């Protein structure tokens, strides 16, 4: 079950990272030269990409809560950085995607929020991973049978729209 839990955490995180890298690359592209199609991709994908991260984090914070009691205070600063970058990204998303024309510096700030997120994630892992290894921490998997059992039907329900939304995002990019 521990392996199942780690797979359950890492797969969404990996998906998040892949789409974040794409979004970072596209934001850089818009910042350097105006490329509005990139913005359309981000607009279509960001909500779901972030939700996938929230999903993984909800699993993490319950399964790892005994460990978080010990290292939570140390994790606060990378988490604070991540939170501020997320809130700023949300604000920019609303400002940029609901206006005809955005200013160049706004794209740079958007890019900065992504990069701050990457820094926060690396900082977070630099504290978390050694703590797991040195304490030989085993996460709580009590709820995993239920989480896995619900996962099948849930995936079946969302897979069609999920693929449709990302396919649309890539179509917007190619147009």
């Amino acid at each position, binding site marked *: 079950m521990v392996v199942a839990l780690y797979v359950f955490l890492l797969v969404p995180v990996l998906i998040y990272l892949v789409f974040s890298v794409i979004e970072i690359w596209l934001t850089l592209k818009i910042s350097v030269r105006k490329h509005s199609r990139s913005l359309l991709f981000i607009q279509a994908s960001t909500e779901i990409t972030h939700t996938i991260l929230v999903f993984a984090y909800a699993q993490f914070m319950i399964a790892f809560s*005994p460990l978080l009691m010990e290292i939570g*205070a140390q994790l606060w600063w990378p988490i604070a950085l991540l939170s501020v970058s997320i809130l700023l990204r949300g604000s920019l998303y609303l400002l940029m995607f609901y206006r005809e024309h955005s200013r160049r510096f706004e794209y740079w700030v958007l890019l900065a929020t992504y990069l701050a997120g990457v820094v926060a994630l690396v900082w977070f892992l630099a504290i978390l991973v050694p703590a797991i290894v040195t304490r030989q921490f085993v996460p709580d998997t009590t*709820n995993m049978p239920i989480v896995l059992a619900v996962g099948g039907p849930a995936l079946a329900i969302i897979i069609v729209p999920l693929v449709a939304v990302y396919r649309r995002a890539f179509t917007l990019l190619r147009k």
Partner: protein
Amino acid sequence: MDSLDAARQLIGHTLAVHIVIVALSIGLPVLMSIFEWRAWRKNDDKMRATVKLLARWAAVFVVGGIFTGTVVALQLSTLWAPYLNEVRPNVGIFFQLEGYMFLVEAVFLSWYFATMHKVGTRKHFWIGIPVSIGTMGSAFFITTVNAYMNNPAAPITLTTWLEFTHSLFSYIFATVMLFLGYVAWRSLRKQTKPMQAFLNFKMGKLGIYAAVLLVVLALLGHQSAVNLATTQPHKLAAIEILDKTQSNAPLRIGGDINEQGVAEGGIVLPGVLSALVGYNDETVVKGLNEYPSYQWPDLIVHTLFDLKMMLIGLVSLVVLLVVVFIWRKKQLPKWLRVGLIPLGLTGFVLVELGWFITEFGRQTWTVVGKQTTASALTQGADIKGSLIIFIVMFTVLALSTLFALAYTTRHWRATEKLSW
């Protein structure tokens, strides 16, 4: 300010912002489905246009909801890890299952927007239904956790169902009132006769929804008070500033508790509290004297509750007037429509007041009888100066949201060639 106060303020501010967005994320899809159903069944283009406006608003709020929701989870895991560890064995699963509901909501909402102009109204209506299931599902799971904090007798209790239904209907009510306020505002502008008739019809419908919801909320609110008397008597005693355990317990509007711990002042209605919670004025209601004063919640909950009741009275009166005018098939007079504009926001004030009373009233506990708020804070957690940064960020997010709403509404008006 010590570390505990700072951490409490931070999570308090975050949740206060998040809850408004949550209310709209639940209420807007419900209204969208109701209007889209009507558009489908009656082939009504004006309703179809209304759905598009609400969908645009929902898109704005869902963005805010995802980002503020992430920040809530991040704070809980670092600053409040002992709390998560306390609730994990009994209700931790609900946090985990809530993740699925987020996915259902976000994925179907994105699909809903993507298919807005590409599929027929009927198919589009059905794509919108899982959005409501997702939003209500996540509300159920997270409210279950909160209900457990209030009444940890079992993972799911009567408190769960009362809290869930009461909050769910209050979110929908807040959204209905907001939209009613918006329609009333636009109806004051110069409109063509058919459009004015349509807006009047819409205000009537919304007024009826609001009236029905008010009745349901009143019944649920009363049942919650009855439940509170047995599951959280200290909270009820603080809300009603009942100083000592007694039968024939009074309901006090206004007033305060003096330094000797005796309630004084205000309007006192003898026996009414006993009659309300036990349907008999001989019912014994526990007072604050049963608890040491350091375990009392902040008695500001009494003032907040009085304020909430006053606002409910005012809103009920106005909604009743709307229903009377509609019933008599008359157009709403200008003064009533002007009054509806500020009242459009009262639903959210009521939602905030309700949650303030729930959360402040539970103090000094985080999980009643099991974990105090002081022991729920992660050891060594100190957010130092970051509180002010977060407050600035929430302000920026709120302003961006208002900007996006104004812009998208103007854009909708231009696209649909409408004047409201």
